[in-house]
């Protein structure tokens, strides 16, 4: 059984704390991405990224 669960990848999976931490990060990241989309839509009334290309060093 140990073999079958280990044979999934070359590194046999990372330590459990790291795995869980990364899973949590991805989850929260997606949540924040969602919040972001709401903020962007509130601000520009669309989700078009061309509104987000204004910040550049002035020529």
């Amino acid at each position, binding site marked *: 059984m140990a073999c079958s669960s280990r044979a999934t990848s070359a590194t046999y999976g990372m330590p459990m704390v790291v795995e869980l931490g990364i899973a949590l990060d991805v989850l929260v990241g997606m949540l924040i*991405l969602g919040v972001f989309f709401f903020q962007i839509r*509130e601000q520009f009334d669309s989700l078009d990224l061309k509104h987000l290309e204004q910040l550049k060093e002035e020529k």
Partner: protein
Amino acid sequence: MIVCLATFLSAVALTIRVISHGPLLVLDRLFFVDSFNVFLVALTAFVGFTTSIFSRPYMSIEREHGRLTPRATAALPQHVPGLQFHHAAGAADQQHGHPLVAMEAATLATVLLVSLYRTPASLEAAWKYFILCGVGIAQALFGTILLYFAAEKLLGAEGGALLWTELNTVKGQLEPTVLSLAFVFLLVGYGTKQSGLVPLHNWLPDAHAEGPTPVSAVLSGLLLNVALYAVVRCKVLVDGSLQTSFAKGLMMGFGMLSVVVVAAFLLHARRTSSGCSLIRRSSTWASSPSPSAWAARSPTSRASCI
């Protein structure tokens, strides 16, 4: 603020203890504190503490000017202790995966703070920050996986193959090819975060100039240090394995390049913009060479003292 003060005091106590008693291993080898990272823990706690003091009057002034809603104002002081905790944890962890997780969590926490003003510019800055740091952290993750892949052959899956103390004892036998690959990924990944490193610095001036000032302080005072710390820890392993100046050369090259490019941008910004935006943009440009200068210098001085 009370939480921050408590963290700061305990960090000071920890520092004194490490200086007088030497390295410390706690919680089943999960955290490791020595004279190298204890100063980072102390610094993190100090910056978090001062920021929490500073952010309260800052936020009330911003509210009077009508730039922030009361709800947004309340958000920042609540966030600072959390950030401080993440960074201190990242600095003290000896598992190579933990700084990664802690830094990603800290990035996620700061992203919404950068866009606190809800202006188009601040939204764009936060968007850039989120995407670029997301890419960076993914690369650092791949580097960590490679490192684990090399170490796991020697230490076994259960032997704590990402624990820094364990890795340090076997660093001479680690696979050199895999480790040099891992170092490149880690440098690029953390370099995005640490942001002094030039091809990946784009998000930095925007996030600093458009976000609230306390957030800017937290970003440059805490995030950059922890990222560079992770790189230096990894560099020690790579040096032990490769026995060449590969990692040293990479860090020095990127560091020098960053200093030169940033100096050019700084001159350019002085010519073109004016007023408040100039001050904030140029101060952030000035903040990015410091980690890169450290990166250029550290291979010779810092790493030799570990």
